[in-house]
């Protein structure tokens, strides 16, 4: 495991959001999407832990980015990977004692269940039945998914506007 002290970021003086001791940092979020990312992961803020959000900050890689830091919570990979639906380039850093002990890019498996609704009002998943939405991931970047029940295709805008 690499020991990374955010060396790729700006100096301490220039950091808009301070380093956290323990928790999860979600970095390289598509600019403007931080709030959607929190929604998709299921964090409302009412849980009580400290959450820091920086939006539209400079990024060497992509010009601009959003960053979210959630203290004292190591988010579960299954929750985290949903972020790939709206921010395919996001990275997850698990922090312990100010050090990055794990760092991964978000990734999607072949299918995603229950996180988003099918846009087709005529889809069985939007009816009165005990069935969860289920999508096949056809392409990750740009995102292109297909409902396993009605074949409806959904892209980035269709997904983001649900949040």
């Amino acid at each position, binding site marked *: 495991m690499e020991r990374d002290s955010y060396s790729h970021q700006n100096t301490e003086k220039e950091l808009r959001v301070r380093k956290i001791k323990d928790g999860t940092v979600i970095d390289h979020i598509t600019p403007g999407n931080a709030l959607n990312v929190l929604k998709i992961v299921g964090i409302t803020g009412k849980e009580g832990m400290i959450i820091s959000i920086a939006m539209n900050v400079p990024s060497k890689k992509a010009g601009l980015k959003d960053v979210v830091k959630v203290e004292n919570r190591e988010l579960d990979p299954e929750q985290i990977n949903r972020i790939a639906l709206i921010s395919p380039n996001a990275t997850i850093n698990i922090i312990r004692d100010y050090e990055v002990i794990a760092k991964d890019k978000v990734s999607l498996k072949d299918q995603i269940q229950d996180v988003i609704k099918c846009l087709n009002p005529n*889809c069985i998943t939007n009816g009165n*039945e005990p069935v969860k939405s289920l999508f096949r991931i056809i392409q990750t970047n740009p995102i292109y998914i297909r409902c396993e*029940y009605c074949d409806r295709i959904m892209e980035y805008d269709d997904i983001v506007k649900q949040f």
Partner: protein
Amino acid sequence: MDVLNFLGRHVISIKDFSREELDFILKVANQMERLYKEGSNLLKGKILATLFFEPSTRTRLSFVSAMYKLDGEVISLSNPEMSSIVKGENLTDTIATVQNYADAIVLRHKLEGSSKFMSEISRVPIINAGSGTKEHPTQAMLDLLTIQNEINGKIDGLKIAIAGDLKYGRTGRSLAYALSNYDVNLYFISPPLLRMQPEVVSDLQKLKVPVQESEDIMPFIKDLDVIYMTRIQKERFPDPAEYEKVKGTYRLSLDMLNDAKDELIIMHPLPRVEEIDYEIDKTKYAKYFKQTYYGVLLRMALLTLILKGDNFDLQ
């Protein structure tokens, strides 16, 4: 050809069937011709439930006929205002109940994906009789049978035009996917507003099926082996004037066939309204009514395969 075992299999989408499986089903369907004429008790003691939440004449009667031809029984719920539904029962509960009354269920429901979901929860096979706007697997199979039987016993090498409402019509779409298993050239003929969904065209291209899209059938007519007409529904057009403009152009008339191949066949899933002139009915090209006969053979085959597996002998 090996005998394949379809015991308990659901029939949800034509895309779930391989070339080998389709060829086998068509083979068994042809073997059903003798049973159709002579009678049979192959499915004696078996019960089929037909759940049609949307209207149907041909499909429902075809399944009923197929079942009776093989000495099976049918319980039909064909009234969409079924009392349990009016009382608020959902489809899941309906299937959970009906699976105790029948050995297989034929389902037509307006919600897309309804058959697929029901196949995940039902203990008995579900046969999709055309739910939503996308799938009609048994229609596609009987269409294949018609093509194969009416043109020299093979589908490979043919040039097939599918015309009319390709956007909302489930038969054209299902047939296109069915034909993608064979070595064919496809021509999609439709008004621009009713073009085949782009993802279907894209799927076909990925499968290396040559596809041409056009508004006009005439440039291709002399090369075609099959013309499959589908009905254009007025209600699909937001602007009635648009419909009036295209109405006349998607109509097959006898004079259009002057340069057609001798062996050309004309098909239609029915009901036919204006798309095919009545004067074509008596020509050698017209196969749309015989299609319904093949539909019974096909459904006899499918029901036997699903309810008996490989435990039957037609010799």
